């Protein structure tokens, strides 16, 4: 399922990021590697989301959030 389907407060495991190589790499460098735990901190009705990955808060636009695939824990 996509990270966009995850609600605030839920935790998931990252499976894959379906985006170009460059951006995928950037996200990986920021800690978004397959298998990592992602906590959805804030998912507003519209606009970017806030997730917690490896102890940092990342703001992610909805476009990229919908391309991040995750598994529920």
């Amino acid at each position: 399922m996509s990270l966009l389907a995850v609600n605030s407060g839920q935790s998931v495991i990252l499976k894959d990021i379906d985006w170009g190589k460059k951006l995928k790499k950037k996200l990986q460098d920021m800690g978004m590697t397959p298998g990592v735990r992602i906590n959805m901190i804030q998912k507003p009705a519209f606009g970017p989301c806030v997730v917690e990955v490896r102890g940092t808060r990342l703001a992610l636009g909805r476009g990229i959030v919908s391309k991040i695939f995750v598994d529920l824990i």
Partner: protein
Amino acid sequence: MNIALAGNPNSGKTTLFNGLTGANHYVGNWAGVTVEKREGKIKYKHQFMTVVDLPGTYSLSPYSIEEIVSRNYILGDEVDVVLNIVDATNLERNLFLTMQLIELRKPMVIALNMMDEVEKLGQKIDVKELSALLGVPVIPITAKKKKGFEELLEALMHKGLVGSGVIYSSEVEKRIDQIENELNVQNKRWHAIKLLEGDTEICEKLNRHEDHIHERISVEKYDYISRLLEKTFIKQIKEKQVGYTFTDKVDKVLLNPFLGVPIFLMIMSMVFWMTFTIGGFFLNIIDVFFGEVLSVWVLKGLEALSVQDWLISLIVDGIIGGVGGVLTFVPNIAFLFIGISFLEDSGYMARVAFVMDGWMKKVGLNGKTFIPMILGFGCNVPAIMSTRTLEEEKDRILAIMINPFMSCGARLPVYALFASAFFKGSEALVVISLYFIGIVVALLAALILRKTILKGEQDPFIMELPAYRLPEPRTLLIHVWERVRGYIVKAGTVIFAASIILWVILNFNASGMTDLTSSFGASIGKGVSFIFKPLGFGTWQASLSLLTGVIAKEIVVSNMMIVYGLAETATSEMLSATLSGVFTQLNAYAFMVFVLLYTPCIAVIGVIRRETNSWKWTIFSASYQFAIAWFIAMLIYQVGSLFL
């Protein structure tokens, strides 16, 4: 001895740099604020050390300009030791860069920053064990309190150690070994890893292409870090997540999709309110000083010394009028920068990008592009340099092209002069409307450029949200002082020189000293005034002001001061009396709009040239802005004339 200072954005790198070198340096709290190479010197126990502050990066893969710059610099021969600053409250992510640095096999020292916060969180880090596992000296510090600096300098003096990097899975290690055996370069292991990561720069350099297992390498690096932390990082049971729970709570409100933008507008209004009311209070004092005290005394003094009339005129009208007219606005500029720096250092700037993402999307940019726009309210030069944090080249050029529309501090004196002369009682409204026009024009320009010559996919919005931190007063003041000093220096040099030149061309012509109307300046102004006729201010005085204003926007004010002899007229009544012969409310407003939008000053043109690395874009920027300014000011004047 050369030290390269490397670390993640928001790790306190710039604070450490300032603390170590005592240099006045720009500090911020949003991801990637350090975009310039900065050097500072330290003397410790008779040893001189040079510290080079590298851009804050998350990794060393050649993904952005900053990462390439950092990597090439560290790999060069110049660097004796790499000082890696690590945010101890965020070890896992920060150590990723550390592991990459270690793979470069340069002597290293790690500064473990924000140890005070780690203690507050009730956590413990086994520093000795961490140091042993990494094979590198690890020194706990608190950069903002200058704690642990003595130990850090001692470690740096001993040049650190080459650490032991990640041990990958046996499968990956086997492939690394294989490639290593076939390579004939220095630092084989690093090159082998880079080849496996599919690092474009290295692949091209060695002309070798492997099956990329980049993802796997990243995962294994993070796994290695996790194991490292299991042995060294103790999270205490009664988990008091002070740092982020507070930030998360505040963000629930500040990042709310409905409240976010209104709150941002309120905060910005407060910044401007402070700029104008508190700054204005000091402004009046300085204004009285220049207009009623200094110029009168100097005038009397010079007359008493029976100095020649022309020299008196040069000093009082030219220098005091020209330079004083600009220096009067120092308090406003200072308060504006205090506001902007506070937003940056507190971590709020990243949130501004977040809440503006929706609006910026509508014009084809992401929220991150809004940060340089806000910095532009201060000065467009650092604002344009900060666009380096944008990854897509087209986004960057677009951000640079629209930045000068954001009204900088140097344009403030022009508005203040005209607003107080023509819009008594509604000055604030007039000035706010100008800032607003600037933003709207910037966004419209972005929209049009995006649809025409800068077509492209918009980069998705990805940004770290640092924990809120109360800005350190000292750091904030260094920050503000650096900008204000720049403004004062400009007044003392560029504007001082320009004022003298202006005075000369306004008092002389080919046959010697003359009155204003037959001077060189008048002839130059008359020569170009036809351009401004349709805009409602086709006088030679206004034309000359605008022409010279390209050197620095404040010169428009200096010019007015000299042309109309305003140096001795301190009160706004006298000011409007002098100016009202030439300007009405309508063309005064059109004039302000023109000053807001037209060709940026020389410093900005220079930085555009440097940052775009293209004369084509530079010339485009200067000319399209002139065209837009002309068109909008013309529209305001012509349409306004129909109704007024």
